């Protein structure tokens, strides 16, 4: 399974499914990462984590551990 964590910096990926449950999943989806949306991985933080993404036209930061819950194509 390819997840958002595996997407190289500067690449764009299309979300297939969000795994996990509860608050974290809901929060990720509330922020607009839903099935079918395109996510651009802009950069990682200077210390290597979290990631900065562009989704639905705005910037979002997400920990790599959470990015693993997002299955991409």
């Amino acid at each position: 399974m390819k997840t958002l964590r595996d997407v190289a910096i500067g690449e764009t990926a299309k979300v297939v499914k969000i795994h996990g449950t509860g608050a974290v999943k809901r929060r990720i989806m509330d922020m607009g990462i839903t099935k079918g949306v395109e996510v651009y991985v802009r950069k990682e933080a200077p210390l290597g984590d979290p990631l900065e993404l562009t989704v639905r036209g705005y910037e979002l930061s997400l920990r790599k551990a959470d990015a693993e819950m997002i299955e991409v194509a």
Partner: protein
Amino acid sequence: MADSKITIALAGNPNSGKTTLFNSLTGSNQFVGNWPGVTVEKKEGKLKGNKDVLIEDLPGIYSLSPYTSEEVVSRNFLVDENPDAILNIVDSTNLERNLYLTTQLLELGIPTVIALNMTDLVEKSGDNIDTKKLSERLGVQMAEISALKGTGIDEASKLAVNAAQSKKAPKPAVFSKDVEDALREIEGLLVNVPEHLKRWYAVKLFERDQKLPENIAAYASQAEAIITKIETAHDDDSESIITNERYEYIASVLNGCYGKKKAGELSTSDKIDQIVTNRWLALPIFAAVMWLVYYISVTTIGTFVTDWTNDGLFGDGYYLFGNGRAEYTEAMNEYYTENVWTDEVKANVDKAVEAGITGADDIQAAIADGDYEAFDEAYGFYGSELDEKENGVYSISDTVDTALAEDAPLPANEDYGKWVPGIPVLVENLLDGMGVNDFIKSLVLDGIVAGVGAVLGFVPQMFVLFAFLAFLEACGYMARVAFVMDRIFRRFGLSGKSFIPVLIGTGCGVPGVMASRTIENERDRRMTVMTTTFIPCGAKLPIIALIASALFRKASWVAPSAYFLGMAAIIISGIILKKTKMFAGEPAPFVMELPAYHWPTLTNILRSMWERGWSFIKKAGSIILLSSIVIWLGSTFGWTDGSFGWNPDLELESSVLGAIGNAVKWIFAPLGFAEIKATIATVMGLVAKEEVVGVFGVLDFEGLSKLAGYSFLAFNLLCAPCFAAIGAIRREMNSAKWTWFAIGWQCLLAYIAAFIIYQLGSLFTGTGNIIGGILAIALCALIIWLMVRPYNESQTAKA
């Protein structure tokens, strides 16, 4: 404010311009408080020009999920209080995600109006929004506004008031057919539910929301079959199905009325971000910004204004605009050179230095520099030390006291410039004029004025600091701080933004604790509030200096070790507490928006600064005032020559406070300092940490071993902070239970740390007892176990 006829709830995403809109809607007509039981700020205000309309500012939220306290507070308000209308502010530069909240608001059956913010920016960037078409499709009236420039706001408020009067419920978002059918089926189950809330509850039941009222939750089992069917068809859980459906509905609504130019070129904000969060530059920039904030608010302006408040306004007095200060200092230096620093004094000080008596070198240096202020400080601190040694061979107090009491009068402040007497002086004069008795005079001066003065001394630097924080928050940098620092701090159960409170805490714990307000996550915020005061603040420095000079001959390792102790306490607390039940609860996802950089408005910054500062003065002020009076009573009531009564010149040991200290001093026996003075000093430290030095002078260390002294230092650095900081903790926790938990934890940790230091130390130096040593080792083992024990980490906390 129940007299208002119309209530309008203002709802919107964080960073959507909601605060600015609220400020322009209400002007200065605001009331700031807290939502009950949570640390979420509650603001309401009357609409400018229409006193009948109350605007309730909901917290900035992305959703109405049951998972964060901000969101729960908002939905409870909307459902239970049933406001007459919702004014939903939508950031048009971020339309899709902003409308996501809108789709949830529309389900509540409350008349809703949208204020479309920043449409001017959208046009500038070459995108376009067909507002009319969008308004028709959503079935909601819209006003284009610019909260920043103040345009369109009247129209928005007019639309909202009209909507409130029309009482027309909006049409909710439309989902795909099978989901709609399922929702209608669930709606059909609901009886005795207000008509306008049926859609809302049906959706919440479908999502298996855990925060529903009992009468609604009762339908959950009946709805289960309907939900499962849809879940199987969509191969997803019901909550996610609804979220997906919402975003799909938004896409369908926007299709054809929102044209986005293909993104390609970088915006100004992106260009700033390329530098600010750059792999190599981010940390140096962060360090520079933090240094600047700290330097200006704590070191320069802060110290200057705080000194003026403490020594001038709440001291003897001050020179207007500083005119005359230099001349007066010079005159005083001359006076001291002539009258105080006689050859006899100098000779005795020199002898004392040779004999290596603590503090003598400070006095000697002050005389050599001809600096009367430094001399007064050093003499006040160590003077008695010289007197006691060797039967007064080095004594200088006789000469100094005679010199100061001589016929040659001290230079008078008034002669060197426009001298403004301090408040205590003015109050004393006033009370003398009124002819009140000594008891009242002492109560007012030593109890109330001194207590209030202690609080107000912090206020100026807090205001400076809050202005900086408001700027960093509003311009978007604060989110980057969290982004850059998250990796380090989350290991200790703290947020990336916890760095700021801790840094500020090295100056003063009060603004440090209050700086935690910028942390959105309630759990991280509580943890930060609990641990910030472990770091030695400015007022703890005299204690460190006292121990270092009295017991360790000013060894250079003492001060750094105090900071190390503070950092260790923060880290150990963080790691242990994040594994406890109190902090477990819901996992804290770090899914954070990085808003576009922009210049904040001056009014917003000043308003935010004022609100935070004022709320501290009010809340913390009352606690400090009360506690100062209690401590004052305890220290001035006592036994003089066997009879109990009030005596302002009472020795601390014979006061009520002293009696209490004597009764409880055994508590500190395992820490090595079961002394009445040490106990009183610790209690007095609650008023202000520098009081410890006042009570527990240099002399009192004669009987203490180095180890006991260090144990005393460790305990006083880590235990409950001063009343001002406790007031701030109370203010930020917004809960008595959490405040007591924080203070309890701090005292417990302080006790354990001091215990381990003393007992293990004694063991190594061969004076300890076996039981104490074993206990200390056991405690060490327990702490290590609590830190490394596995626990069910949330998905976010791993890695």
